[in-house]
C-alpha cells in the first residue's frame, strides 16, 4: 500500500522515500466535457485512478495537477488552459523536487490527451538530467473500447461511465445526446479537433472544438 505525499509530515516523507522511489503523479485538465459532465472530469478521472492504485501499490502519490493544455476548448465557459511550455516546466520542477527527495521512477497517470506532449517532454528531460525513468499511462489506452464504444471519445460513453462511478451526482445523463460533427464542405468531414476525413482518409489538422462540435462532444 502506498501513501499520499500531501498527507505526510516531512519526517514521514523522509521514511516513505526510504521505502520506495516510485512516485505517481496524476495530471488532468479543467475543461468542457459536454453539457452532461463536470469541467473537472479529466483531473477527477486521473485522481480517482491514482487513489485506487495507491491503495494497492507501494508508491508515493502527489496531488493531482488539475489544469493542463486545453486551448482548443476555450470556446466553452469555465475551461482553463495553460501553455504547453508552462505545463512542461511546472511538472519538471515538481519532479526535480521529488528527485531531490529520492524519486527514481515516475508514473504519470494522465487524464487529458492535451497533456501528452508535455509529459513526453518531461520524461525525456528527466531522463537526460537525472537518469530517472518515467511512464505515461492513460486509462483510455488501457481500456481502449467499452461495450463497443471507443474510450477516447471526449464526453463519450466510457468517460461518462468512468465519472458516473467516481462522482455520480455530477453526471447529468439526461443532458447528454448523440455526438454529431459538422461538415466543413462537401468532402471534408470533421473527425475530431485534430483530424478530418477526406474521401475516407483521416487527415491531421486542428480546429477549436466549438467549430467542430456544437455541444462539446467529440471523438
Amino acid at each position, binding site marked *: 500500500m502506498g501513501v499520499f505525499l500531501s498527507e505526510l509530515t516531512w519526517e514521514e516523507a523522509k521514511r516513505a522515500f526510504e521505502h520506495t522511489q516510485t512516485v505517481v503523479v496524476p495530471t488532468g485538465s479543467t475543461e468542457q466535457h459536454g453539457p452532461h459532465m463536470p469541467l473537472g472530469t479529466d483531473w477527477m478521472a486521473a485522481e480517482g485512478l491514482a487513489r485506487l*492504485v495507491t491503495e494497492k501499490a507501494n508508491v508515493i502519490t502527489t496531488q493531482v495537477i488539475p489544469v493542463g493544455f486545453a486551448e482548443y476548448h476555450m470556446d466553452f465557459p469555465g475551461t482553463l488552459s495553460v501553455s504547453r511550455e508552462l505545463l512542461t516546466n511546472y511538472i519538471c520542477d515538481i519532479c526535480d523536487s521529488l528527485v531531490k527527495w529520492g524519486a*527514481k521512477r515516475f*508514473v504519470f497517470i494522465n487524464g487529458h490527451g492535451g497533456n501528452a506532449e508535455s509529459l513526453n517532454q518531461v520524461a525525456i528531460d528527466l531522463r537526460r538530467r537525472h537518469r530517472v525513468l518515467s511512464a505515461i499511462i492513460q486509462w483510455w489506452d488501457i481500456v481502449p473500447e467499452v461495450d463497443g464504444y471507443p474510450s477516447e471519445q471526449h464526453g463519450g460513453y466510457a468517460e461518462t461511465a468512468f*465519472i458516473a462511478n467516481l462522482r455520480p451526482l455530477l453526471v447529468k*445523463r439526461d443532458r*447528454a445526446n448523440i455526438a454529431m*460533427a459538422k461538415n466543413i464542405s462537401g468532402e471534408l468531414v470533421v473527425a475530431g479537433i485534430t483530424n478530418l476525413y477526406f474521401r475516407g482518409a483521416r487527415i491531421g489538422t486542428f480546429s477549436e472544438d466549438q467549430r467542430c462540435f456544437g455541444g462539446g462532444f467529440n*471523438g
Partner: protein
Amino acid sequence: MVEQPDARPIDYAQATPEVGRRIMDKAVQIVVDFIVEFEKIQL
C-alpha cells in the same frame, strides 16, 4: 451536420456507474501490475 464517420449513436443511459467501475477495476489492476514490472527496469 453529419454523424462522425467512425462514431455510432451513444446510449448514455447505459453509461452507468457499474460500467465505470468495470473500467476502473481493469485500469487499476493493469497499472498496479505494470508498476511491479516497471520497478524491475534498470535505471
